């Protein structure tokens, strides 16, 4: 009954995709847990209970959050590089990485300005600024990848780009700041807590967008290819 596909590329690609699905489910599941369950739990719990629960649960939670993020983006990037090279656009994988790393750096700066109360202290203003910035980077990414790139190449560049911003949030803000908070319990600096909560909320908002572009890459072709 089985007709297993031959050829190592097909098998390796699917093994990558399977790993990507598993670790991605874990990652985005923990993004949701961290924001909608854990942060709300901490708000409602009394100080002593919150501190005790935090010291036990958070170190383990953070390792899975960071590790799953790395594995998801890593497998995704390999797959994306293979998609691009099949279209004769391999060098664009590096351009993509450079552009979205810069975009993530700018997001990082905005989050810090807001957490320290220097600018955009109001969460709604920060949200609007981040949305405008990410939409601008996304639109230029579409313009760049559409020249010669298929719908798939464009959709993955956006979904993967937002995911890279999420990964940077975890590794540079949410993880390190949470550990700093843990070490300083029961009286951490409010700005560290604020940075964690902003990074967590941004990741929560980005995940539906990531999933939309990831799913559309294979199942809803809406980007048009332009002349190179």
């Amino acid at each position, binding site marked *: *009954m*089985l*007709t*297993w*596909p031959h050829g190592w590329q*097909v098998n390796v690609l*699917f093994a990558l*995709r*399977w790993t990507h*699905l*598993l670790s991605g*489910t*874990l990652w*985005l*599941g*923990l*993004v*949701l*847990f961290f924001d*909608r*369950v854990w942060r*709300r*739990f901490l708000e*409602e*719990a*009394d100080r*002593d*209970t919150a501190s*005790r*629960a935090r010291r*036990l*649960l958070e170190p*383990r*939670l953070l390792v*899975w959050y960071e590790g799953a993020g790395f594995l998801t983006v890593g497998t995704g990037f390999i797959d994306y590089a293979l998609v691009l090279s099949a279209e004769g656009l391999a060098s664009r994988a590096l351009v993509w990485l450079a552009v979205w790393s810069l975009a993530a750096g700018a997001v990082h700066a905005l989050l810090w300005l807001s957490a320290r109360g220097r600018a955009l202290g109001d969460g709604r203003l920060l949200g609007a600024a981040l949305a405008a910035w990410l939409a601008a980077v996304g639109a230029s990414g*579409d*313009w760049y990848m*559409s020249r010669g790139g298929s719908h798939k190449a*464009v959709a993955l560049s956006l979904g993967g780009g937002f995911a890279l911003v999420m990964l940077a949030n975890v590794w540079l803000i949410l993880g390190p700041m949470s550990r700093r908070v843990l070490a300083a319990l029961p009286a951490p600096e409010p700005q560290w807590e604020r940075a964690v909560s902003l990074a967590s909320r941004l990741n929560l908002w980005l*995940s*539906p967008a990531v*999933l*939309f572009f*990831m*799913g*559309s890459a*294979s*199942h*809803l*072709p*809406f*980007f*048009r290819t*332009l002349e190179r």
Partner: protein
Amino acid sequence: MLSWPQDFTTNFQFLLRWFHFLAGISWIGMLYFFNLVNVKFQKELDAAVKGKVNLNLMPKALWLFRWGAVWTWLTGFTYYVLIVGSEPTGHMPLLTFLIGWSIAFVAIAGLFRVSVGGGPLKDGRLLALAIIVVVVFIGYATALMARNAGASSRSISIMIGGGLGTIMFFNVWMVIWPLQKKILAATKATVETGAAAPGDQPAWARRAFLASRTNTWLSVPMLFFMGAASHFPIFGVLAK
């Protein structure tokens, strides 16, 4: 630079798929939290704060868990109905699917009860083996019937992945959630009035744990078949 597909079906099916992803992450994400983080956390948490922590933490996580399961199953089943309806089999495989995997769930839920009662199945490894036998048997039998009726590789793959998801869905609503409700009610009584924990509580917790751990393991092949449906045609050429 957009050229959006104009037909209703494509857009509707993609909407279903997107909700399926979102709800699926809510469901399986909480499942992974329970198994990878929470089990050890509960063991280390001291008794003085355990009740207070769980009455605050668990209802929030269990809400995303069980309603995620409902939306994942409903969107997935609707999608499967659309796929099967477009194939030469007609809707017959739906019946095979529902009956076959309901039998698998009843058998597995029975195994949990036997295991908690004692005997050789108390050993987790033997229990796992028995569950694997049930799943492989039902998976093979339903796939064979669907193939003989002319189902495509895609629809057979969804049938198996969705079948594993169906066992998991029943485990959530007929095993884990009813037991967790009892456990939370007992915890509340203990915290508020100092009442002693009911004698059955360890058995409830054990059975809920077995269902939860089973779901975690089943999610791995489940995601394999879900992804394989569109991207890895293993049941290809031999389909009639």
